[in-house]
């Protein structure tokens, strides 16, 4: 498919809260190509989640334009827009009164798929996120944190979106689960040819998963680059600090391991 427009484009997007007193996002411009995996990294309060939510109109920008697949989102019905974009939530956000299968089926139901089609899709997605199919009838609260977020990923992918937004998706998980889930998702991203924008405060996670990283501070994007570029030649002092922390930790771990042997 020849694509002559970005999957997602931010053009001079700003967002203020409290009638202009709080500036959450400040003149952000960024294009995310189709099939690209972009991580937005920043501390809490940097405006990264607000920026993410302007993509599916959970937040309306105060000024600037957000485009999805070449179209200004202001011209798209917000409910239709959200249903065609997958969303993995920070707090998992599974519906506690619905079974695993019903949670996964939420968006296909909203867009009116046939029941047989939905059932088949639920099974397919459980396989994709490597959950046993007999989990389908369980309630979310009976699952482990890792299992719950796998269901969250399956729910986001259910209606076959081209774009998936992830808001600190693995933040609440233990390191091992987090690592395996992140790598599995990366594989799914490639396999399905998705465009993914992931919010994280963890530079290491971003470096390991993303094609490109946008670093945000105080509502602005201070630097954008591939992991290679940021690792080797960070232009921004803050970015250098962010990169240095995991690097220093890694070498410390190496040193300790060497000293023992």
């Amino acid at each position: 498919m020849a694509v002559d427009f970005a999957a997602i484009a931010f053009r001079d997007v700003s967002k203020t809260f409290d009638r202009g007193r709080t500036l959450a996002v400040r003149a952000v411009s960024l294009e995310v190509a189709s099939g690209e995996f972009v991580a937005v990294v920043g501390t809490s309060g940097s405006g990264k989640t607000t920026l993410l939510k302007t993509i599916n109109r959970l937040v309306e920008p105060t000024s600037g334009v957000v485009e999805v697949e070449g179209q200004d989102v202001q011209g798209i019905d917000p409910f239709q827009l959200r249903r065609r974009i997958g969303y993995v939530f920070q707090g998992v956000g599974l519906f506690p009164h619905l079974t695993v299968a019903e949670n996964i089926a939420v968006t296909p139901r909203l867009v009116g798929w046939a029941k047989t089609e939905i059932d088949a899709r639920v099974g397919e997605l459980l396989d994709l996120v490597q959950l046993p199919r007999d989990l389908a009838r369980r309630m979310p609260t009976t699952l482990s944190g890792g299992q719950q977020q796998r269901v969250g990923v399956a729910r986001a992918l259910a209606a076959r979106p081209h774009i998936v937004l992830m808001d600190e998706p693995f933040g609440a998980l233990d390191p091992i689960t987090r690592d395996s889930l992140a790598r599995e998702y990366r594989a799914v991203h490639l396999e399905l040819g998705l465009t993914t924008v992931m919010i994280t405060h963890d530079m290491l996670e971003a470096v390991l998963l993303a094609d490109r990283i946008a670093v945000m501070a105080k509502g602005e994007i201070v630097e954008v680059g591939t992991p290679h570029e940021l690792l080797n030649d960070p232009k921004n002092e803050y970015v250098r600090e962010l990169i240095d922390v995991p690097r220093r930790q890694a070498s410390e771990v190496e040193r300790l391991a060497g000293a023992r042997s």
Partner: protein
Amino acid sequence: MDARIASAWALLPDYLGQHVLLSVTALAIGLAVGLSLAVIGVWSARLRWLLLTVAGLIQTIPGIALLALFYPLLLALSALTERLFGVKFSALGFLPSLLALALYSILPILRNTVTGILGVDDAVKEAARGVGMTQAQRLFKVELPLAMPVIMAGIRTAAVWVIGTATLSTPIGQTSLGNYIFSGLQTQNWVFVVFGCVAAVVLALVVDQCLALVERGFARRKMWLKLAGAAGLAVVLLASLVVGPSRGVGTYVVGGKPFIEQYILAALMDQRLENAGLQATARGGLGSTVIFDALSAGEIDAYVDYSGTIWTNFMHRRDNASHKQVLADVGAWLKKTRHIEMLGPLGFDNAYALVMRRDQAERLHIRSIADLVPYAAKLSIAGDYEFFARPEWKAMRAAYDINFRRTREMQSTFMYKAVADGEIDVIAGYTSDGQIAQYDLVVLDDPKQALPPYDAVLLISPRRADDAKFRHALAPLIGHISTKMMQQANLAVSRDRNQETPEQAARELWQKIDMK
């Protein structure tokens, strides 16, 4: 089985059926309004504050006052719609009770629904938005189902309140389990009072437990619990409605005020009409002004009032006249201003009168208030809590220039025994009270007519004025009930031993009328 228990059982299907019907309808309306308002309250913080405040204020109005307020309100509304659209509706009974109870049930439902929905986890609400649910979809697919246990708790509170408060709808003419309590209190039939309380409590408990099952079903997401609760409610509802108000509301309605004599007279009129082949219902325990307005409006067809009551309370007359004159004036006034027809006096009166022990009266040769004057300075007098503040007391003292050693206020039911025991010398009693006969007391004449006459008069509604069959059925009562007969009937219902129900006393009264 005790006659009173038997008669309580016999009334249960009707009372319970009407009680359930009223409560269920009120709850259904409260539920619909409460849930709708809650949705508005969830969407707008400012309106939420307003709604909860108003609902809270309504809740602070005592149930009986709220019920009583709806009667004149609806009466005025009915008069308005009749003038504007020619449509009239009954302001008595079901409608005012229903509206008051529905209003009462809104608060717990509204408050719990708002709390429940606002309490849904923000992450879940955010997810519902994020997956592309519309506001309505979020409400019905996510927020309401998750808030359901809290909402159900509110519905339970509302149900218990409504079932309890519905007992207070009796004075505005709605049959309910409260009929046992109100008539029992007035006729000193404690079996009825206890029966009514127990029936209302059992009903409230059963409904509450069924709703609790449904609540647990929502909380644990167990369908069978919800179904079990719903089935229990359905059984209660169907059972009370099937065996329930089968008697229905008769074509003719006779009313009565909330005291023994009136219960007996209402029962008597009911029996007369039924015997004449007219379907009739007795509605006892109606408030004094409610019953008069209800007769004017044709919501009841007949009741017995007292000439003095109409003379002072409705005609606002402060002067006194003879029995005959008062009767004539009252009859003419009723016809002219309210189109109510006075069928005639029953033959007895229920007035304030000075009453003494027979032996003391005979010893002092006292037959009238005038005879009493020389001895009064050495005698004590007791009256009910309002007597010494009433115009009758002032008028009597002025007319006879009589002064007693001391005055004492007493609960009216205890006065007669007090005078019989010699604890007090004279009481201001009621002429038709059964205790006058019980203690063989003497009623003093009032030669100067200082105390206004309270002749019992049978009044019929404007719409029955030309109903020959109806008038014919009630006509035998006119002029045929002597004060003595009424005293005995009242005594039969109020005495401690061999107490009769008002229906039994009415039947005996009928036999005596026929013998005349």
